[in-house]
């Protein structure tokens, strides 16, 4: 069992309180996943700036800041617990190479023009607090509370998984064909950092999006290619989608108002959201892809 939550703002009304809305949702899903938690927030930056979400672990932040500034020009760094958001106009290809070569102990959690990702082992309430989720603003966000099944309780095994620029995916369920699919995707050039089944689903989405398929079409073909139990929420720079497998054992409920669309494993995760009692509330049907944005 895991808890998944997501919120997509249709208007600007709640952009400043996005983090607060998402942290309330995460906190209420503690009962579905007390092992680890994570979230991705989408917030548009000035053009040509890339954001890199890095997990620096035990490394001293000031020391890291000094060293990375020597290697990457015009870099700005912000620290949130053991995560650092590095902002720079330098292209991903160069930055990823520098990080992999010079800082092997650091893991790249995600990158893009819009996305910031944070994940950590521990109770969702503590995780949200450590990363100051309440203080974030943005356009859409996705979160996850994990009760580990397919792989160990580690930061690497936590969601969301990001395997492409501005992409992320969270999952409630388990996949049964992930080893086979991982091998196929590796042959196509995908890189995986864990043994986790969800990372394979995220990689599958990235591979398809890089072949110019839309998010919706990607998930439609995923219904055939991904075997197992799942409710997925995926995010891209401007889009947000939800899909449940055809058996639909894993729950999901959607609340839509004129200002936002929220999705969660259980309604109680959304009970605190503004105007939720007058929202259109429905359960996504099995095997149907629901998407908003592009």
């Amino acid at each position, binding site marked *: 069992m895991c808890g998944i939550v997501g919120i997509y703002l249709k208007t600007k009304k709640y952009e400043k309180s996005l983090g607060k809305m998402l942290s309330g949702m995460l906190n209420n899903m503690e009962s579905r996943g007390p092992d680890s938690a994570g979230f991705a927030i989408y917030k548009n930056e000035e053009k040509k700036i890339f954001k890199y979400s890095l997990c620096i672990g035990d490394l001293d932040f000031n020391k890291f800041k000094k060293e990375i500034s020597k290697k990457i020009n015009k870099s700005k760094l912000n620290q949130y617990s053991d995560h650092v958001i590095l902002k720079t106009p330098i292209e991903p290809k160069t930055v990823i190479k520098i990080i992999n070569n010079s800082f092997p102990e650091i893991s790249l959690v995600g990158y893009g023009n819009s996305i910031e990702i944070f994940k950590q082992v521990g109770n969702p309430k503590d995780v949200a607090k450590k990363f100051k989720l309440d203080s974030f603003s943005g356009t859409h966000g996705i979160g996850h509370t994990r009760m580990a099944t397919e792989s160990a309780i580690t930061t690497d095994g936590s969601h969301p998984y990001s395997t492409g620029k501005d992409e992320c995916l969270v999952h409630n369920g388990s996949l049964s064909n992930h080893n086979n699919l991982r091998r196929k995707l590796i042959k196509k050039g995908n890189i995986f950092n864990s043994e986790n089944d969800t990372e394979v689903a995220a990689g599958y989405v990235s591979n398809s999006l890089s072949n110019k398929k839309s998010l919706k079409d990607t998930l439609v073909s995923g219904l055939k290619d991904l075997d197992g139990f799942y409710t997925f929420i995926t995010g891209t720079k401007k889009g947000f989608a939800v899909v449940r497998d055809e058996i*639909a054992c894993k*729950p999901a*409920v959607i609340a839509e108002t004129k200002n936002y669309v929220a999705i969660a494993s*259980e*309604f109680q995760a959304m*009970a605190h959201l503004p105007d939720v*009692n007058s929202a259109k509330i429905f359960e996504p*049907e099995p095997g149907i892809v629901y998407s908003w944005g592009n």
Partner: protein
Amino acid sequence: MKLDLKKLKLREVNEKLQSLDRKQNDRNFTIVNPEGNHALCAGLTDEININIKGHVGYYCAGMNQKAQITIDGNVGTGVAENMMSGKVHVKGNASQSAGATAHGGLLIIDGDASSRCGISMKGINIIVKGSVGHMSGFMSQSGNMVVCGDAGEALGDSLYETNIYIRGKVKSLGADCVEKKMDKNHIKKLNSLLKDASIKNLKAESFKRYGSARKLYNFKIDNVSSY
């Protein structure tokens, strides 16, 4: 009496309703701010009326006996699961497994019910004014399920002696589930069920009846009275 789940804990509300002072005359309760809590009003055994104002979580009104519970909102998984008697009325939509394994009573859902509605039901009457999802009536044993809208895939898979009445389209029938003839008794029963749910504009004749072909389980005519 008004019970506010913002002020009281879920357990306090349930304990209060489960252990009523029988000398007390107040038999009407309103629950406000349910906020998706699970197992609200589970295990009630008294003839009381409860109105829940808002959306609730899983297993609402589970194991109910005698109580009349109205939910002014949506319900999560397993509403009225294993209900024995009484009435549960959902004014919104219901999630999966509504009325699962229930032995008796009446469950009315004004909106849609999702997958596995009435799974393994054992005598309850379920009336859904909207549609039901896939695998509804799976292994259902006895009682009646009435659906005014459509039914999803594999309706009534491996069912025993439940009568399923569907007005709309059936996406597909499950194993051993077949369309059956409606005789006078069925029309009469269906009309009384529609009346129980205050449905006036639909005629029993506009429904189709589905039941077991009795090929999958060992039906014995000697045991018919036990269904």
